[in-house]
C-alpha cells in the first residue's frame, strides 16, 4: 500500500533536537529533591506539633488519666494522618516491570479507588480521634471550673466539633473525591477503549 509508506515517511520527518542528557539528569534530581522536601515538611510540621503537645504533658503535669488519654489520642490522630500521607507515594511505585497499557490502566483505576477510600476513612478517623482527644483533654480543666463556665466551655467545644464534623469534614472529603472521581472517569474511559 503506497499510502502506508507515505504516512511512515511523513511521520519520521517530525524531528526535534535531542536535549543534552545532563538536562535530563538535572531534572530528575530536582524532581526527587522536591518530592523529598514536601515529605519532610509535612512530617516535621506534625512532629513538632506532637512534640509541643507532649511538652504540655510534661510541663502542666495533668492529674487525671483522661487528660493523658486525650493527649495520646491527639498525637495518634496525627500519626495516622502522616502514615497514610506517606504510604500514598508507594502505592504504585513498587510494581516490578512496566505493565502494558491495559494492566497499567487497571492499576491506576485501582489506585484511585484505593485513594478515595483511604482519604475518606482516614479523614473521618483523623477528625474523630482529634475531637475525642481534645474532649478528653478538656475534661480535667472543665471539672475544675464553675458550673456556668463549665457549661459554656462544653457547649462551645461541642459546637466546634459539630462544625468540623458536619461542615469541614464533608467539604474536605468532597473536594478530594471530586478530583479523584474526575480522574477515575477519565481512566475508565481510556480502559474502555482497550477492552472494547
Amino acid at each position: 500500500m503506497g499510502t502506508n509508506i507515505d504516512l511512515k515517511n511523513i511521520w519520521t520527518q517530525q524531528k526535534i533536537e535531542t536535549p543534552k542528557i545532563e538536562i535530563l539528569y538535572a531534572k530528575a534530581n530536582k524532581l526527587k529533591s522536591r518530592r523529598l522536601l514536601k515529605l519532610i515538611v509535612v512530617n516535621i510540621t506534625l512532629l513538632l506539633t506532637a512534640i509541643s503537645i507532649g511538652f504540655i504533658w510534661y510541663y502542666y503535669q495533668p492529674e487525671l488519666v483522661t487528660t493523658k488519654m486525650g493527649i495520646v489520642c491527639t498525637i495518634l490522630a496525627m500519626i495516622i494522618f502522616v502514615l497514610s500521607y506517606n504510604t500514598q507515594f508507594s502505592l504504585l511505585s513498587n510494581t516490578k516491570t512496566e505493565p502494558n497499557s491495559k494492566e497499567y490502566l487497571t492499576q491506576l483505576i485501582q489506585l484511585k479507588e484505593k485513594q478515595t477510600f483511604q482519604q475518606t476513612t482516614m479523614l473521618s478517623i483523623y477528625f474523630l480521634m482529634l475531637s475525642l482527644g481534645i474532649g478528653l483533654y478538656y475534661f480535667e480543666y472543665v471539672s475544675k471550673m464553675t458550673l456556668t463556665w463549665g457549661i459554656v466551655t462544653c457547649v462551645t467545644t461541642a459546637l466546634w466539633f459539630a462544625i468540623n464534623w458536619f461542615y469541614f469534614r464533608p467539604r474536605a472529603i468532597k473536594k478530594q473525591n471530586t478530583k479523584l472521581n474526575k480522574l477515575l472517569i477519565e481512566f475508565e474511559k481510556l480502559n474502555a477503549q482497550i477492552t472494547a
Partner: protein
Amino acid sequence: MKFETIYKTYWQKVFRLCMGYVNDSDTAKDLAQETFIKVWKQLPKFRNESSIGTWIFRIASNTCLRQIEKESKMPKSEFPKEIKEEILETTIEKDVKFLYQCISELQEVERIIISLELEDIDQKEIAEIVGLSRGNVRVKIHRIKEKLTQKFKINGN
C-alpha cells in the same frame, strides 16, 4: 545497555510517540523527558523480560495515558499559536503538521497504536505494549490508516 545509548537511540522515537498523543511539542518534550527519567530510574531493575524497545515504549505509552492527571491539575494555557505559524512552510512540513493533527484527533489508545505502527514497530510488539490481542491490533491499525488516508484525501494532500 548503557543509558546514554538508549537515550540517543530512542529519544526521537519516544518524542514522536508523545507528539502523536498530544500534538504540542512542548508537552511532548516534557512527556518524553518524563519517560526517560523513569527509564533511567528503572533500568537497573530491567531483566530482559521483553525487548528493551517494548519496555521503553510501554513506559512512554503509560506516561502519555497518565497525562490527563496533569491536565486536570494544571489547565492548559491557551497561547496564541498563530505567531509561529506565519512562517512559510514547505509542503512536507504541512503534511507533517496535518498528519500529527489528524492523529491527535483520534481516540487516545488509537493514537498510541498508530504512532507505534508508524514508528515501524512489529504488530506483535504493539500488542505487547498496549495489552491487546494481535488480531485486534491489526484490525485497529487497518481502520485507523483508512481514516487517516481519507482525511489526507479530503484535505487534498
